[in-house]
């Protein structure tokens, strides 16, 4: 075997080279760098995923300034086009970076690395990534988050966990939104919870209404616990020490 690349060193014109390499290896490596970057600052990143219109931005708006016990929150917004969400989030008082993916249907670790470099999250803070609205593609891409939250609004119908199992199988929390609309839609919450449990017994399930505030305290408490630092702040890790980001800001 060739000592340089591990190829089958033969004399024929055509050679087979064994790679055995994970396709997402590069993304996973960048995600680990994001995770280290955040750990060094005792900051946590949470990946918020859902279909478009499930209420991710409204949820973040309704939390702003209401729950004083939460650490500082900053936001990375992912959309194909426009800064509409970033404008809303900024108006709500958060530091925010908007990523436009163009034709892309998901955020990847490289995009998030660039956004983290711009966002410069404070020690002990929470970074919430609002992924591109999509129940399929974002499930595959580790961003360096410490938890994955899947939002599902009652207006979408209760069949989504079974239709999009990859997404729901990876969730740490399933957050059912717009529950103030339950009286007006056919959404069986018990059956929904059963389906989620059958797909993913480890996932927690909470319900909220950003409009009425119902369930918001429990959601914010979940968020606070999920973002707890894994180790106490280290005096040798001042902000700005970890700078693994080489990519310029997103266009």
């Amino acid at each position, binding site marked *: 075997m060739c000592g340089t690349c591990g190829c089958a060193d033969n004399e024929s014109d055509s050679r087979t080279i064994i790679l*055995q390499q994970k396709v997402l290896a590069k993304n996973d490596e960048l995600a680990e760098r994001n995770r280290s970057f955040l750990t060094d600052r005792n900051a946590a990143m949470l990946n918020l995923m859902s279909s478009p219109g499930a209420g991710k931005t409204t949820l973040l708006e309704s939390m702003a300034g209401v729950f004083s016990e939460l650490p500082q929150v900053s936001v990375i917004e992912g959309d194909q086009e426009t800064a509409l969400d970033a404008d809303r989030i900024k108006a709500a008082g958060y530091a925010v970076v908007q990523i436009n993916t163009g034709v892309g249907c998901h955020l990847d670790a490289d995009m998030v690395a660039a956004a983290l470099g711009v966002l410069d999250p404070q020690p002990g803070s929470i970074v919430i990534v609002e992924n591109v609205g999509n129940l399929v593609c974002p499930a595959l891409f580790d961003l360096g988050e410490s938890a994955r939250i899947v939002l599902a609004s009652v207006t979408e119908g209760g069949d989504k966990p079974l239709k999009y199992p990859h997404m729901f199988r990876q969730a740490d929390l399933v957050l059912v939104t717009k529950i103030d609309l339950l009286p007006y839609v056919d959404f069986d919450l018990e059956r929904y919870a059963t389906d989620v449990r059958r797909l993913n017994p480890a996932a927690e399930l909470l319900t909220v209404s950003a409009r009425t505030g119902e369930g918001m305290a429990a959601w914010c408490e979940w968020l606070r616990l999920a973002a707890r630092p894994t180790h106490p702040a280290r005096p040798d890790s001042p902000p700005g020490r970890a700078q693994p980001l080489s990519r310029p800001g997103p266009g």
Partner: protein
Amino acid sequence: MHELAITEGVVAAVTERLPEAKVTLVRLEIGALSGVVADSVRFCFDLVTEGTNLEGASLEIVESAAQCRCRSCGAEFDPEGPIMLCSCGSADVVVESGADLRILSVKVV
């Protein structure tokens, strides 16, 4: 369609590893639980490889089956459908195989 990004990842990984080689065949493993549709990768492949040292290469995809193990009773089974439910009734299962997404090998001249 994340298969486009996945296929671009395959091409980037191969060209990074073998920048000078003319690649004539790429063999991928796509597991049944990987979340990637093999036909969509096939659909993108020629487009994504155009202008690279993989241009004109054939694509061979090994679609590996899913295999789960039940944490409750220890049984091994191939899950059918989206719900990984053991015949003992437990949903507490671990995926043993079928989640892989790997570049197995390439053929170069």
